[in-house]
Every structure is written in C-alpha cells, then in structure tokens.
C-alpha cells in the first residue's frame, strides 16, 4: 500500500513537473508574450524596458527563470503576478478556492442526487416509456453547451423575467458563507443547477447502464430468489455495486472541477473561483498566475485519480485484498 502510494506520488510529481515546464516553454515561445514590455507600460523607452527586463530576470537563461519562479512559488511562496504587480499569486488562488468549492460541492450534491433518482427510476421503469424519457432528458442535459445554458439562464433570470417570477434572484456574483447560508445558496443556486444539468445526465446514464447490467447478474437473481423486496434488490444489490464505477467517474470529475474545470460556469456567472482566475490569467497572459493555476489544477486532477483509487478499494472489497 505504501509503496503504491509512493509510486503514485512520484508519478504525480513527474506529471506536475512536465506540465509546468511545458507551460513555461509554450509561454515564452509565443511572440508578444514577453512580459517586460507589458510591465514597462505604453511607449516605454528602451532603457526602461531593459531595466524592467533585468529587474524581473527576463534577460536570464530560461531554465534559471524557471527555477526562480518555482522557488518563489514553492519555497518563498511569494510569487507575484506580472500584471497586477505586487499581487501575490498564492493568496489569489487560496481566495478563489472557497468559491470554487462552494460551486462544485453544491452542484455535485444536486447532480448526484438527481442522477441517483433518475438512474434508479429509469432502471426500475425499464421497459416502460419512463425509461427512455429519463434517458433522453439526460442526453439533452449532456448536449447543452454549458456556457450557452448559463447565458440563457442569466437572460431569463436576470433580464427577461427578472421583474416577475425571478424577482428574487440576486445579482450575479459570489457571497461568502460567512454572510449567511441563505444569501450564499441563493447566489449559487443557478450556477449549481446549470453545472448540475450537465453532469446529472451523464451520471444518470452511466448509473442506469451499470444497474441494468447488474440486474442481469446472478447475484441480483440470487437476491430476488432470497425473497427480499424489489426496492431492496434495486438499492442494496444493484445500485450498491453499480456505484463503484460511478464513484470512479465522480472522483475524476470532481477533481477536475475543483481544479478549475468549472471555468465556463464561473465565467458566465461571474464567480471569482479558480476557473475564473485561470481564465483571467490566460486572457491577461499572466504567467505566474497561469502557472499557479495550472499546477493547482493538475494537482487536483492527479490527486483525484489517487483518491479514486483509494475510494475504489474501499467500495470494492475485491480490489482491497489485491
């Protein structure tokens, strides 16, 4: 177990290293990306430009720049933005995390519940018209471009029907949990739903197909033969075993979302989360923030993979003993 974890950690570090190097190289290979001129300001004299270049170390070999940036990011922890000078990168990321966590946790709760209901219901109702209806609803959810859906939701709740049925919808943006659970949840309600619509469909479909598959398994027939109720067969046997693959999926998605994959939702709903930070840093071409965001995101993706493996072992005793 420890060897396994060690190997995984080593692999993760390698992956993170590779990503950071790639980001660094790509950044500096892009024409116009040289931060010196942007830092120096409009129509700066060449002397000023050189001065800025020297003071930021942009005139040094690229591997030294890389080393310096990594040192500032991980050892001194005082890496500052190229754009918002003096703005430290790490606090920016840590401030964005609660927003993303709030968004993703809430959305995940909704989509998991929704997917459970939809998946179990579709399984129980297979053979009837309800099953395909649920599935098609799910497919539609999967097929809507999330930023488009977000914009349309905004159009309806913030503009078209804002004076009538959606008068209670607060303006876009994030309100911290410390301002009260009510306002917090109300501000996040539509972002939650928008994000959840996408994933609920996927999860319901995966769950349903797993469950239908398991309904043909011997152990489900055995469970029926034991004379236990159909609901119990569905929930304790079929659903319980089907959850394994859903959890795997969930771990990966959740990791990616926490890492900033909710970018489009955050942008559309004006939530200052990690995704929005990543987006802003990309549009600003602000290398320190890009690097911090990307490493943070990769860490979560890799970490989620790792967690999923552990969770998998916990859910599936067969894996545990291997």
């Amino acid at each position, binding site marked *: 177990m420890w060897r396994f974890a060690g190997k995984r950690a080593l692999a993760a570090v390698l992956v993170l290293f590779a990503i950071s190097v790639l980001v660094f190289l790509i950044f500096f290979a*892009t*024409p*116009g*990306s*040289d931060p*010196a*001129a*942007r830092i*120096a*300001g*409009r*129509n*700066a*004299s*060449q*002397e*000023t*430009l050189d*001065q*800025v270049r020297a*003071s930021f170390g942009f005139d040094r070999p690229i591997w030294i720049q890389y080393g310096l940036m990594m040192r500032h990011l991980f050892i001194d922890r005082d890496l*500052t*933005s190229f*754009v*918002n*000078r*003096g*703005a430290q990168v790490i606090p*920016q990321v840590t*401030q*964005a995390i609660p927003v993303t966590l709030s968004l993703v946790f809430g959305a995940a709760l909704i989509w998991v519940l929704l997917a459970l209901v939809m998946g179990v219901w579709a399984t129980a109702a297979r053979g009837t018209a309800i099953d395909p209806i649920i599935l098609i609803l799910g497919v539609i959810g999967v097929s809507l471009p999330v930023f488009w859906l977000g914009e349309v939701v*905004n159009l309806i709740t*913030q503009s078209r029907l804002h004076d009538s049925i959606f008068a209670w919808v607060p*303006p*876009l*943006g994030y309100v911290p949990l410390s301002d009260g659970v009510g306002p917090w949840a109300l501000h996040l309600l539509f972002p939650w739903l928008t994000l959840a619509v996408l994933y609920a469909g996927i999860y319901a479909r995966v769950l349903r197909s797993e469950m239908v598959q398991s309904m043909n398994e011997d152990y489900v027939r055995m469970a029926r033969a034991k004379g236990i109720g159909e609901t119990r067969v569905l929930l304790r046997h079929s659903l319980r075993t089907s959850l394994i693959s859903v959890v795997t999926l969930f771990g990966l998605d959740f990791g990616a979302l926490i890492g900033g994959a909710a970018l489009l939702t955050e942008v559309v709903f*004006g939530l*200052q989360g990690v995704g929005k930070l990543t987006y*802003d840093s*990309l*549009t*600003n*071409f*602000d290398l320190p923030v890009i690097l911090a965001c990307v490493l943070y995101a990769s860490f979560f993706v890799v970490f989620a993979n790792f967690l999923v493996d552990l969770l998998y072992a916990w859910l599936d005793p067969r894996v545990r003993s291997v």
Partner: protein
Amino acid sequence: MNRRVLATVGLTTSALVLAACSSGGGSSTSSSAAATSAGASAVPSGSASVGASGDVPAFQPEHQGGTLTLLAKAAAGTLDPKVNYTLQFWQLYQATYDGLTSFKKVNGADSFTVVPDLATAIPEATNGGKTYVFTLRPGIKFSDGTDLTTDDVVASFQRIFKVSSPTAGSFYNGIVGADACLKTPASCTLDGGVVGDKAAGTVTINLTAPDPEFLYKLSVPHAAINPKNAPEKDAGNVPIPGTGAYMFKSYDPNTSLVMVRNPNFKEWARDAQPQGYPDEIDYKFGQTVEAAVTAVENNQANWLFDPPPADRLAEIGSKFASQVHVNPLTAYWYMPMNVNIPPFNNIKARQAVNWAIDRNAMVKLYGGDKLAQPVCTILPPGFPGYEESCQYTTPAGTTWQGADLAKAKQLVQESGTAGQEVAIVVSDDEVNKAMGEYMQSVLTQIGYKASVKPISGNIQFTYIQNSKNKVQISVTQWYQDYPAASDFLNVLLGCASFVPNSDSSINMAGFCDKGLQAKMDEALKTEQTSFDEANKMWAAIDKEMMTASPQAPIFTPKLIDFLSKDTGNYQFSKQFYMLVDQLWVK
C-alpha cells in the same frame, strides 16, 4: 467610451493601452473649449497652458458624507502612482496624490489648465527655458502624518527612475542626470537635475534642453510627490502615503480598493486639490459588466468603470437617460499600416485603405454616432493643432462624408498589390473583432486576400508593435497623455518611436520620414516661443502625414458615465475624467 477599450483590450493590464488622458478641448461639445485651451496656452509664451485661478464651485457641506461605491470588472494592477499607467487608477490618484503642479479639478474644458498644487505658484522658466524653481507650500502633511519637505520632492523624482516608471525614459529623460538614472536606476541621484533647498523650501529642476510640455509632465501622477521613505521598488498593492484629500486604506486587486479621508488633509487650493464629499470610497472588483450595469440601475452601486455592454446601451440611454453622461475624448481609433512590408510599403495601397474605410460603419460597430465621431486626421477634433480636414472622403469636404470604394480599388490596381494576402491583427474582444471582421470584408472588396487574426487583447498591443512579428495592418487606439500635438504626431509617427524588433515601438507603422521628422522637430522648437505658431505647423504636418498615409484614423470615441439615481454633482475633467471624490451620495 475609451474605457471600453481599456476594459476590453486589457482586462486588468489596461496599462498597455491607456495612459493619462486629458483632453485639450472637446470635440462635438466644445469648439469653444478648444479655443479656450489654445488661448490659455498662449499666455505664458513657451510653456504649457497654465492658469492661476479657476471657478471651482464652493464646497457644499450639506452633501458631505456617505460611502461611494464604484464597480469595475477588474482592478488596474499595482497601486504605486509612479508605476501605474492606467486611466482607471489615475482617475483615483487625483484625490490621493499631488504633484508640484496639477491639472485643474473642474468640470469642462478648463480642466485642461495646469495650476500650482504643492508649489505655491507656477514658476517662469529661466535659463533659456531649462530651469524651473518651485516653492513648496508650507504646512502640508502626508497622510502618515509626516511633513512634506523638499527631500520628499527630490526623492520622488529619483524614485521615477528607481522603480522604472513607464514614462521615465519618455517624459523625464530631459532632466539633468536622467541619463545616468536610466542606465543604473539603483544609484539614481539626479544630481544637478532636481535640487532641493530645505531651508528656503524650494526645489530647482534643471533640464538639458527646453521642454515646453514639461509642466504637463509634472502634472501627471508619475510625478506625484510621496514620502522619501517610499520603497525603492514597485510598491505593488501596498498603498504609499500621499498628500491628497483621501488616502488608500486597503487594496486587494481581486476584491476591492478602499479610500478614506486623509486625516492630515487641509484644503490649500481648491482648484488643485479640493476636499471631497463622500467619507469613504469603495471600489469593488470582479463583477461582470452586465452585473455592474444592473447594480447601478438598481441603485446598489453608484458608478461603473467599464463601458456598458453594447446590448445594454439602448436600455440605459432610454430608461435611465438622466443618469447618463456622454463626453468626447481626445483619443482616436486607428489602423497603423506597416510601411516597411508589402503591400503597405506602397503608398497607393495605404491610401486605398483610407479611401475604403466606411467610418460610419465603424462608428456603428462601436455603438452608434452618439458614441463616436468619424475622423480622418491624426489629431482629434478640438485638440491643439487640429484643423478640420479630410483627404479621403466622397463627396470631397473637410469632414468625412463617405467612402469611395471605386477609388480604393483603382489605387490597389495601380499599386500592383492586388491579390496579396493581408492579415488584420485585432484584439479578440467584441468591438475590436467586429471592426477586424468588417475590415476583412472591405479589404477583400478592394482586391486583397484578407483575413482577420484576433489575438488575446493583452498581447495584441505589444505584438503589433514588434516589427519582428511582421504585422501588416492592425486596429488600435491612442489616448493622449497631455494636451499637446506632439503626443500624437511625434509619438506615434516620429522616427524615435520606431525601434525595430522591440515590443515597445509605439510607431507601429514603422514610419520614419526624414522631411516630416525635421518639420516636427521644428514645431517642437517653436512651442518654446509660441504654441499658436507651433499648432499651425502641427496642423500642416498632420495633413502631410495623412497624405503619406501610414495609418488610417477611424473615429474619435466618447465616454459614457452611468451613475445611479442617487448620485449627484457629476464633474468631468477632460484630463482625468469624472472627478470621483466630488460626487454626492447625500
């Protein structure tokens, strides 16, 4: 409206785009304003327009108090007044920092006048226009409680170089000792350049050559006076004490900037640094512009920095008309054409573009004729040196009437460049992209194989400057730093502004005409004796430039300020735009 540019071109790095803006006279509203400023400048010969007294309205204590809430999509980077080069924060610095001189804090065209601020008076330049002696007002304290002394002034000028201020090499390189400071900022002394006499309370500034525009340069925030112990590097988001009516209390670029009254402030000159009305000013960042517009509509915030999105314009222009203020800017949108590579190394090809652009269409893409005015000169309407003229219009006239596609096609044929590939590099925001798309259409019509290349706004501005990138034509904007014709003509098209293979080469056209450069040098020299005289020369240079056609001016934009219902006393300074601290919330 130039703030649309700001907001879109650089989400937070507006620094690229914008600098100070002042307007030497309005466009549509004020042909008289132009006259005023030109007249004012003529008074002290050989110097920027200065004035002593103004008609600043008296303070009305009944409106004092309350919290003013401002919104912006993003903050504007460092808070250091010596480094920040964005309109967004320069607007705020008016209330927090002072220079030896400053632009007058009044509504309208008069705002363009330079008045004494920390100095008791505007000194007459001596020593052949090379020496200025300022006397500091006594009894002024910084917001941290320390007294303002001549040491602070000297240190502040040194600091311009020590922090590599963006304008160090362009505005302040004429100070004696600046050369050494630019080379080795750390040991900058400006020895013999800026000399303080603590006992007499005077500061002497020596220039290497006369600079009639120097007083303007002293009046922008980069020349603001801060305590001598201010850090010798960019202070980032740590506020530096100042002498203004307000001080920065806290700043987080991701969330908010808070300004409160400076406890050590006593009004000394109402036209230079008036006391403000709100007790606190909260500037909040991070909301979308859509949300900000809604918030102002709903009276939840007083004002938003970013230009309202195009699809909300009609709504605020009709439902909220009384809360909207539109002001012309001394700025322009233009298309530099690279005169060193095909097809625009051919003058006919360049002229063809000027003939072909339907400037009305561009105005429409920008938001309609209430928000921009077509131009075909480099100097904006109302600007010193501006003379109504248009070489590329049909029917012929002095203002732009319509494009002549036939003529453009013919010129392209004559130039022999027809069929060549042309890439238009634009910033990837909505307005710029729309203009790029439109130009693609136009260039295709006149015979080129045109394509649009929208790229990230934060890179576009440096990308199009670097000759290495071989940009043929692009869409960009220029906002004045101070009201002098050279700030457009000499800066944008002077030989010195073209630095091959550098990201900082504001002469994007790569245009360098020896004859025209000689004329510009002559005009600059003439400014020492007479701005009027010089401005006539600038007007002629503008015409010649337009004939050479290294760029195609498109329009001069206007600015929308949208205030909430309960916000009063809107004052618009041509130099730094809305006077934030003069707004009433009570």
